[in-house]
């Protein structure tokens, strides 16, 4: 079955109105910010963002904020719990007639992969189980970025981080496989889950627009190419994001009530094209080519697509 966008078919449909404004101290070329800006164009300004500590902490550096929405800052492990509190408060206020229903706002969690895959996982699981009506936006830069790029459960095999360097005993760098958070979320059967990439802006906008019709947990995993942590020139953020999808490493998909549909079927270029752009994989190519490690990464991608198509 091929997936068709219903709403966003042309780039000129992307709303011109901004909801995440310039002037943040986030890195030049931040792929996470790029996704958030696009998402916010659909989410609008009637939003409370509940932000787990991470790079996005820097969004709102007092006394400045780039958001025309509200922002609540939480610890790394508790953003979904914070979202529950905000949602409950809104519900109570509406029930008591102290807040008109039209003034209700969306509750949106912002979390890096460190919180999402690791520290806030139990809190997220609880929120999904309780069918909390919220959005979860994870910008996945595949490391604990804000503290200097340490290994997280989202770091893929073969990447170099501050705590998984290329070393004699593990020349490929990171030895673990990236945790499949999509499937962990899906096991909870929330109404809507999607992966997105800012280099596929129509796919991204469409998914946020679609999710809006579901009440309950709506979970998004956004590919966040990170020039600082992945060691590439910020100009290549779009190329890294594109090749992640085109090489089959970052599948674009959604799951509605647990039913998975791939929203884009890449022709699947060799993974080298993606790896070679980034300094975090340089040790796989220089000084000697680590053929086995690269083949392993390719094999994982092949297996994924064999199993889903």
């Amino acid at each position, binding site marked *: 079955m091929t997936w068709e966008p219903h709403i966003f078919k042309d*780039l*000129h449909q*992307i709303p*011109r109105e*901004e*909801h*995440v*404004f*310039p*002037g*943040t*101290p*986030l*890195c*030049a*070329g*931040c*792929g996470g*910010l*790029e996704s958030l*800006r*696009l998402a916010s164009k659909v989410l609008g300004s009637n939003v409370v963002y509940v932000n787990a500590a991470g*790079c996005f*902490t*820097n969004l*709102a550096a*007092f*006394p*400045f*904020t*780039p*958001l*025309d929405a509200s922002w609540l800052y939480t610890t790394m492990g508790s953003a979904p719990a914070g979202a529950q509190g905000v949602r409950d408060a809104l519900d109570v206020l509406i029930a008591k007639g102290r807040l008109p229903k039209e003034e209700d706002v969306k509750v949106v969690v912002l979390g890096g992969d460190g919180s999402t895959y690791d520290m806030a996982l139990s809190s997220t699981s609880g929120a999904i189980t309780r069918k909390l009506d919220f959005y979860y936006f994870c910008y996945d830069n595949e490391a604990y970025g*804000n503290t200097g790029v340490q290994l997280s459960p989202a770091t893929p095999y073969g990447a*170099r981080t501050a705590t998984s*360097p*290329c070393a004699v005993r593990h020349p490929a760098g990171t030895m673990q496989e990236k945790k499949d958070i999509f499937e962990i979320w899906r096991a909870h059967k929330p109404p809507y889950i999607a992966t997105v990439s*800012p*280099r596929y*802006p129509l796919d991204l906008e469409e998914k946020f627009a679609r999710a809006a019709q579901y009440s309950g947990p709506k979970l998004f995993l956004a590919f966040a190419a990170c*020039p*600082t942590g992945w*060691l590439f*020139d*910020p*100009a*290549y*953020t*779009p*190329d890294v994001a594109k090749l992640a999808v085109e090489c089959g490493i970052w599948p674009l998909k959604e799951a509605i009530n647990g039913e998975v549909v791939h929203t884009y079927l890449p022709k699947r270029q060799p993974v080298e094209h993606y790896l070679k752009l980034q*300094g975090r994989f*340089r*040790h796989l190519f*220089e*000084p000697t080519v680590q053929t086995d490690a690269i083949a392993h990464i390719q094999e994982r991608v092949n297996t994924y697509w064999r199993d889903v198509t």
Partner: protein
Amino acid sequence: MLSIRFHGRGGQGAKTASRIVGTAAFLEGFTAQDSPIYGAERRGAPVAAFTRIAKKPIRERGLIARPDLVVVADASLIGDPSARVLDGVDERTVLFVNSPLTPDQLRARTSVSGRLTVLDLTDLALKQFGKRGAISALLGAVAGRLAGLRPESIREAIVRELTDLGLTAPVIERNQALAMQCFEAVQPVTLEPGPRAPVPSAQLRTPTYDPPTRGTAGITAGPNSAIRSVSGWRTFRPVLRPDLCNGCWLCFASCPEGAITIKPDGKPAVYYPHCKGCLDCVEVCPTDAMTVEREPEGANK
């Protein structure tokens, strides 16, 4: 004891430069200390790093408030109050600035005075490497020269520090070679370390709060970050050639900052105070209508 303070933008290599100087001094038998400021530093945002060199054990810790030598990787930082480049600088302090301007031009355009050395490292690196990138080895070599360190130890320190960062031998050799050129290009100076006037202690003020019955502290303004200019972050700027633009809006969709707006005629326009110079728009443009220009130095960006 010699106190060296480095100022740069995240990604330029100020932190690594401080390590190169520290390591080189250590190799020459000195006691050395090097450390960057930690403050969730982003690529492009102001960063600082510190190196102390002495014959005896160093007891002092923390930031360097009274530097003997200040190394500035990006001249646009001088005018940025948050970077505090000139804090604690007095008539004995030697200042190195990476800039295409002459010392006199720099003095005229900024508040810099006193003992100033200037060299355009960015241009040298661009010519040599063909693309923008960190200039840590060059900064380290210049700082080492001004600090009176030997070329051999700086070469060795560059190898050690860049190897640590995962760079390969050919890249390190190219960096070493260019670093040595910079070493030669800078005239040695006599630094005048020694006791300096202490920094006056800050006057603390107790903040006043409204009583909780009136409201809690919070930002109730709209999206006010847009009043801040991020122009200083750029070393290059995207420049649109409207004749080549087909109005596809890819650049507008891809700008992480939202620095590109759409004009009434449907064509994009870059608003420079909001542009950090990531050049993502240049990369996505299908018709090469977005071109790249090196940021004019000292201009009012």
